[in-house]
């Protein structure tokens, strides 16, 4: 049941990315290109996505556990730190360079896998570099 629900949720997410146009890098770049032919569609997608999630967080606060899992595993960190800021800026640079963020990258594997594969492989490599680097600095300190 857990796995079927996760698959369904992923498929709905991927379908939404495609329908909203966010799987198309040109649409995303159009939003980021404020000095060009600005395309506000991404703002509508964010609005549409935040509505059900706001309701979900409201419901979540009154639940002791999720419907098909033993407990919630949610980020608890509160403090603002340098890795958060630096990581976000690095991510934003890559996002601006290509118009692609992780969700659309993976979703595009189902649409035009060959065109997106270099990005996905490089993204996995970037994640691996971070993983090794974080592990190493943990061992040193």
């Amino acid at each position, binding site marked *: 049941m857990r796995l079927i629900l996760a698959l369904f949720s992923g498929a709905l997410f*991927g379908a939404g990315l495609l329908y909203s146009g966010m799987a198309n890098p*040109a649409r995303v770049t159009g939003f980021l290109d404020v000095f060009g032919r600005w395309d506000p569609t991404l703002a509508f997608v964010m609005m549409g996505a935040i509505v059900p999630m706001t309701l979900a967080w409201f419901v979540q606060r009154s639940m002791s556990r999720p419907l098909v899992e033993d407990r919630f595993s949610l980020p608890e960190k509160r403090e603002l730190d340098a890795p958060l800021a630096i990581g976000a*800026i690095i991510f934003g640079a890559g996002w601006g360079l290509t118009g692609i963020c992780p969700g659309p990258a993976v979703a595009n594997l189902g649409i035009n896998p060959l065109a997106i594969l270099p990005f996905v492989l490089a993204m996995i490599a970037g994640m691996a570099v971070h993983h090794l680097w974080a592990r190493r600095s943990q061992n040193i300190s």
Partner: protein
Amino acid sequence: MLANFPHAAPIEGLVGGLMIGTAAAIMLLGLGRIAGISGLMAQLLGMSGTPRARHVAAMFIIGLPVGAALMALGAPVALEMSATPAMMVAGGLLVGFGTRLGSGCTSGHGVCGLSRLSARSFVATGLFMGAAFVTVAMLRAAGPF
């Protein structure tokens, strides 16, 4: 107002956004987890989380291209990538490293975090949006694209 932006797709954007938000709500209320793609990717790759979490992450990640492909059958869309292969590789490296260091991407911070009113997610979303705006402006200044 939208008459000024003839290439905007507000209805598709809102409906698609509702689908994305509903999917994230299912992850939260059903499975107790954040539908953040970069985090789920890292769990799938065994870079964070438990083996139990890994299976859920794998199913969600497999679902993404499946759902996109099914939707493409019903509503074919144009996919335009203007980035050169070198930009795609550089962008992928930056996105992979940056989302892990910054604990999230557009979905985790932008959709799930903002709706949770998380201060960390507001800061992250502001910074990655800002950095992306600046990057695109610099590309525009550097030449035609």
